[in-house]
Each structure stands twice: as C-alpha cells, then as structure tokens.
C-alpha cells in the first residue's frame, strides 16, 4: 500500500476516533445525569459546543506559548493515534505502528500534559499553575506503575511492539494478557483510572477547588482544540489498554465496544467516589499499584 | 438574673434596668465602666457566650447607644449592657481581646456608625461597602432614599403611594373621606 493511501486511511481513522470520542463524552455526561436522575444533555451536544466555540468572535492571547498549549495537547493526542495500530491484522488500519512503538506511545502520553503546562503557565492565572503542578505530580505518580506494568508485558512477550503484543493475545479471550498476566493487568487497570482523569483523580480540573484548572484562560477556538483532543485522548487511552490487556480489536465494531467498556469502567468508579487531594492521590499510586507493578516484573524475571 | 443584677448594682452604678423576661435584662452603664463590666460578667458571672454587639442612633438625644449582649449558657439568661456615647466623633474602648469574633462587630460599627475603636484589628478596613464617601450609612441623618435617587437611575413610571390613602381608594372607592383622618399620614 502506498504511503498516500495509508495516510488517507489514517486520517479517516482519526476522524472516526474523534467522532466516537465526542459521542463517548456525551454518553459519559448522559450516564452521570441518569445516575443523578436527570434527563441529561442531548447526545449531539459536544458537536454543537464545538461549532459554538469555533464561532466565538473574540480571540485574545497571553503570549506566544499560549497558542502552543492546545496545539501540543492536540499533537499528543494525534501522535498517540498515529503510532498505535487501530485494528489488528489490517493493513489499512494499522496506521504507522512500528517496532518499539510502545516507548513512543508512553512518551506521547506525557507530551500533551507538558505542552499544556507551558501554554497554561503563559495564561498567567493562578488556577492554571496550581492545576498544572497538580497534574504533573499526579502524572508522575501514574506513570510509574504504568511503566512497570508495560515492562512486565515486554518481559512476558519479549517485545516492545504493540502489534506483536496484540498478536500474542489472539485466539480467544483466554489468551488476553489480563488472564495470562493478571498482576500486570491489574496494575495497568489501576493506572488507567488515573490516566482517564475522572473522579477520584480529576484534581487537575477540580471544578470547585481551582475551577477547571489549566484551561481556565482558554476560550473559543483554543477550547475547541482542547475539547477535540480530549475526545481523541479518551478513545486512545482506552484503546491503549485494550491493545495491551484485552487482545486488541480486529474490526471497528470490536474497537468501539471494547474502548467503550474500558472507558466506562473509569466513569462508573468516578460517579460514586469523591475526589482525592493531590497528596492522597500520589500516595495511592505509590502503594498498591506500585507494589503490584514490582511484583509483576519480579514474577516474569525469574 | 435578678440577684446577679442586685449584686452588681452598686458596683457598676447600673441605671434604667429593665426586664424583658425573667431571663433577659437590659441595663445601662457608664462608658468608663462598660468594658470592665463586660469582663467581669464573662469571668465571674459565667456570661461566656457573646451573642452580639449592636448600636442604636438616638439622634434626638444626640447619643449613640452601644449594646453588648451576653449570654450565660449554664444559667440560661441574657444581659444586654447598654452604653451611651456622644454622637460627635464617637469613640469607644475596644473589647476585641475578650472574644475572638468581637473585632468583626467593631469593624462593622466603625463603618456603619463611624464609631472608632482604637486598637481593634483591621478596624479601618472596608466591611460591606467599597469606596464609600458619604457619611456613615446607618446614622439616622443619612437619607438613603435621597442618595439612591441622586445616584442611581430610577426607572420612569415608578410611583410611590401612601398605603393608607391608596388602600382606601382601592377598597372603598365610593366612600367619601370621613372626618376620622389619620394625622400621621397626611
């Protein structure tokens, strides 16, 4: 397949993922509303919000880096999509995945957060800076068990290629990593709670402490970019854990169902738990997930 | 309640003692002895709960009346200690060392009545108003209606009626106004 065709398919996949992410965030808010006993927003609300944000007339800047915050965030989201195989075994939908793409993915996961830190810091609002310092502290805490879990999988499958990890899990659900390597699986699922950023780990945007944190100053088109990269990230984070633990997907239906379930596992936890404080959140990741992560490595090392 | 007041009657030279109920009394004490008496009531008579501090403007007598309302949580009785101070350049000894919330009341009274409490923390800061240039707003001779009409923009068409005549006209339109007129609402 020529590189142009591949690019076209990748962009089409990005479009699918973007829309699926928006639908998923609408569904998320719908579910929260239903738990509360409300009717909730219409399912098409995120698209309208996006158009509305594009139609905002006033645009102002706080400096050059202020522009780059949303751009970096979006790059992080798109980069994660580009280098992760969307569907396994499909030449068209394998995107630009390559040997050792797992390392790059983990890097891209931090990339958006770092970009946001620079941009939001330029916004100059104290809420942004407090939110960013919380976000980076928590991100470091999440990253540790996550990388330990990933290393455990790398030791188990003797590879750092996501494609080969998925390939090793084919042939029925009993081959999924969550069953073959449950300790690493649980570590990664606990880290997933933090990576998804829902309550109890939503302290970056904590609406009644530091109202919505880093994006406080972002409006209009900037916010639209942030919203769409958020939607992509929702799907991509879920897809990463799907590929690592649940055998990947071989068609779009499977992709949608599996990402949905993984995403909503974090949503349902979030609905019934309040928010941690930053020191509690960091300590939480340093306890059970970290211990499990080390155990997962030790088991496969010997 | 009565026996407490009898006991301290001569000590503080109390005047105009009146009982609202058996457990609530209001009494007047001179400006010099007031804080002394409040301290005494707190330390020796068990009036440990500070209920409120207030001020009334008796413009006719050219006096401001401060009130310290104390409550005894064990005997369940209240005493209101009233102090009359001059209306010009009013000033009063600060009592912020007795209860930790008392400076708030003093700060409010400074703004609302212009009473100075030397030494009270943050007494000169704004409390509820910002950039207020008129005279203290709770004094009787500050006319809020006049101020509002001059400062803000009243909407055209808003009318004010005297309630008595308006109600009479609405309820009994055909009845002529009789001789029994009210003197206050003319």
């Amino acid at each position, binding site marked *: 397949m020529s590189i142009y065709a591949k690019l076209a398919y990748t962009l089409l996949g990005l479009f699918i993922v973007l829309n699926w992410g928006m639908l998923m965030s609408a569904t998320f808010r719908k579910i929260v509303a239903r738990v*509360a006993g409300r009717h909730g927003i219409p399912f098409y609300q995120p698209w309208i919000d996006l158009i509305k944000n594009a139609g905002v007339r006033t645009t102002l800047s706080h400096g050059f880096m202020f522009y780059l915050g949303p751009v970096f965030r979006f790059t992080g989201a798109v980069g994660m999509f580009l280098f992760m195989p969307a569907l396994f075994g499909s030449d068209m939908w394998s995107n630009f995945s390559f040997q050792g793409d797992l390392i790059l993915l983990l890097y891209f996961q931090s990339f958006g957060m770092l970009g946001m830190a620079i941009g939001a810091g330029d916004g100059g609002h104290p809420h942004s800076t407090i939110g960013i310092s919380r976000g980076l502290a928590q991100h470091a805490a999440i990253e540790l068990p996550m990388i330990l879990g990933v290393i455990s999988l790398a030791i188990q499958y003797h590879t750092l290629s996501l494609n080969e990890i998925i390939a090793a899990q084919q042939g029925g659900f009993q081959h999924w990593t969550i069953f073959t390597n449950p300790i690493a699986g649980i570590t990664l699922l606990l880290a997933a709670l933090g990576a998804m950023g829902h309550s109890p780990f939503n302290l970056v945007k*904590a609406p009644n*402490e530091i109202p919505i944190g880093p994006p406080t100053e972002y409006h209009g088109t900037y916010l639209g970019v942030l919203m769409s990269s958020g939607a992509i990230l929702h799907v991509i984070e879920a897809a990463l854990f799907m590929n690592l633990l649940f055998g990947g997907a071989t068609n779009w239906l499977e992709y949608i169902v599996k990402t949905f379930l993984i995403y909503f596992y974090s949503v349902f936890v979030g609905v*019934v738990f309040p928010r941690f404080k930053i020191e*509690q959140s960091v300590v939480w990741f340093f306890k059970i997930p970290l211990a499990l992560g080390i155990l997962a490595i030790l088991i496969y090392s010997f | 309640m009565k026996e407490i007041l009898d006991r301290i009657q001569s000590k503080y030279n109390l005047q105009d003692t009146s009982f*609202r109920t058996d457990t609530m009394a209001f009494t007047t004490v001179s400006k010099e002895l007031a804080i002394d008496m409040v301290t005494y009531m707190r330390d020796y008579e068990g009036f440990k709960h500070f209920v409120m501090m207030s001020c009334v403007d008796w413009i006719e007598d050219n006096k401001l009346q401060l009130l310290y309302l104390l409550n005894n949580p064990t005997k369940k009785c209240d005493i209101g200690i009233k102090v009359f101070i001059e209306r010009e350049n009013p000033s009063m000894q600060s009592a912020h060392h007795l209860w930790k919330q008392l400076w708030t009341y003093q700060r409010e009274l400074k703004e609302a009545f212009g009473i100075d409490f030397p030494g009270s923390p943050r007494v000169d800061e704004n409390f509820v108003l910002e950039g207020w240039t008129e005279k203290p707003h709770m004094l009787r001779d500050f006319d809020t209606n006049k101020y509002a009409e001059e400062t803000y923009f009243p909407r055209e068409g808003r009318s004010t009626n005297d309630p008595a005549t308006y109600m009479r006209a609405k309820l009994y339109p055909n009845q002529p106004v009789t001789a029994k007129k009210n003197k206050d*609402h003319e």
Partner: protein
Amino acid sequence: MSKFFEFKPDRSKYPAMGADGKLDIDLSSQKYTKLWLGPNHPGVTGNMAVELTLAGDEIVEAKTHVGYLHRGFEKLIERRLYVQGFPTSIRMCVAEPDTNEYLIARSTEVLSGYDKDVPEMAQWLRMLSLEMARLQGLLRGVPGQAGTFSLGIGVQWGVYLRDLILDRFEELTGARVYHMYIIPGGVRGLLPDGFKKRMEDNLRDIDDFIVRIRQLMFNNAIFNKRAKGIGVIPKEWVEQYGIVGTNARASGVKRDIRKDYPYLHYDQLDFDPPTATDGDIYARSWVRWQELIQTVDLIRQIMAKMPEKGDIRAQMPNVLHWKIPKGETYTRLESGRGEYGMYYVTDGSDKPRRVNLRGPSYTHAIALLEKMLVNTNIADVHATMVSLQTCPPEIER
C-alpha cells in the same frame, strides 16, 4: 507503613512571625501567591470572597471579604411601616427565609404586647413551617458536603427532594422561596386538604434518601479520608469564638435554642439534639445527617400533635396605623445553622428604630474561618466553608 508515605510539608520556609505577632509576608519576594477565591468562583458558598495567600498550595493567610450582597436592610426597615418592613426583612437570608419571618413577627408581638394572644393553631403551624424550612435547608446542606469533594450525585438527589418540600410550601403559602407565612399575630392560612398525606409521601421519599446518603457519604472510603481530621474546631473555641448550632454540637457542646430557651411548642416535642466530639468536617456532616433524621421525625410529630382546627390569627390593630411603644428585645431561634437572633428596638412611632440581625455565619465565616484555613490545603477551603454552613447574606444584610 502508612506513616512512611505521608507527606509532611516543611513549614520552616513559611513566613516568620514578626515582633508584633503578625506574619511577615512579603509578596514581592515571589514566594507567595495571592489568590482570590470568589466572588466569581463556583466553590464559594454564595457571593463572598476569601483572599488567600499561598505558599505552594498551603494557605498561610486568609481574609474573608463580604458585602457583595449588602442591601442595607436594617436601614430600609427603619423607613418603612412595620407591615411594609415585613416582606423586605424576610429576604435577609435566602437559605431559610422563614426564620426571618418568625423573628420579625415575634419581636413585634412581644414589644406590642400581643405575644400571649397568638392562637394555639398558629403556633403549631409556625413550628411546621420552621421545621420544613430547616428540612429544605438540610436537604441542600447534607449532600452539599459531599458535593465539595466533587461527589455531585447526592446534591442532585437532595435538591430534587428539596423541590418537593418547596411544593408543599407552595401549597401552604402560595410561594416557593419567600413565603411570608408567619405574620404578626399568627399565620396566613390553614393547612390545605390532603396536605398531611402528601407531606407524609415526601417524608417517606426522604427516609429512603437518608439511607442512600449514608451509604454514599459515610460509608465511602475517600469521603472519610478527606473529611476526617480536616477543619477541626476544638471544644474550647466554642466559647472563645461564639460558635453556635451544629458546629458547636459537632465539637461536643450541646447548644440548641429549641431545648435551652424553648419557643413555640418545642417543649411538647420529643427530641434530643445530636452531638459529636471530633469537631472536624466529618463530625459536622454526621451531626447534620442525624439532624436530618430528627427533622423528619419532628415534622411527623408536629403533624400528629397539632390540632385539626382553630383560629390562626389574633385580632391585631390596623397595620397602617400600628404603633408600638418604646422598648427593645432580643428574639432568638435555632435555624439550620445555629442561633439566629434579632435585636429589635422601637421608639413609639409607626416604624422601628433599629433592627439588627445576628446571623451565625457572622462569627463562623469571618473570625473562625480565617483562623481555620491557615495551614490547610487549598483543596480544603471549599469543604471547610460548606461544613460551617456559611450563608453570606446574613453577614452583611
């Protein structure tokens, strides 16, 4: 093991105490951040502001700013007839307006000598209305504490049930929020037909809600973690700061105006105010949760004990020419937030000389809050404020 993981912030870098006892905070040194929480901040209770000085996200100094809701009620009432001042004054605190109605009505009755004339039926209806007001306040306040930790579902359920109580208020008084039901001399109307049955239905819903909120809040590990040991009011502060109501009861001081200075017919009801000893946010929300149970019980008791029929209003003079002889009084009641009182002075004319409201938040939200916030985390500000039941309109009137 868990002690090992606990972060102990290094407070040595925090401001030194100067010779005059004030903190030495040099904002230009760039070590501190000035942060205003409010008035435009979703986490602040109502329209008020807390000015924080932060070192990192630890608070080194807090100042409360009020006055954003100042309307000058006390001035306005001085230039209105007694009856005209009535609808004005009940807007002094929006969270439980009925308490203002009772205070004004009771003060004028006492000063004009009509307090013995208020009929039996009116007394019971006043009690019912006051307890319903407390119930609607608690339905917002109890889950509101979980809402401060971003557990918003309880708030949604609670506000829905509060709406049902407001419906009953609408039946009883014709208005949703500002009822003007308790008037000098009695109340404005009898119970409508079938009111007790519909009320009982709502109370049964609320019983169900009480159980659910217990599971949601007090059985929740993270709620316990965030609420325990935060915002502690030691017992000795209760005298020093004049703390009242549930905040005092959560610190182990049993203070309830309904028990200590019984008004209306509270001495005929069977209840015991709940207390706790810890004095932290958890204790305060626990006391408030038990008060929710108790209020539901009290409404049931009132509906069972109240007479079926009777006069609801005493014969009062013509309100347009009503003059009250010179006098002064202090009237108090137990609102959902604590002792709520009014100092009322008359001078023999047809308008009051001075009306001064004593709201519990006056001490809780300024002197106490400023003291409690120091050395806490910025994440706890909202929770502390809500747990003190701060209500700004009663501070600034």
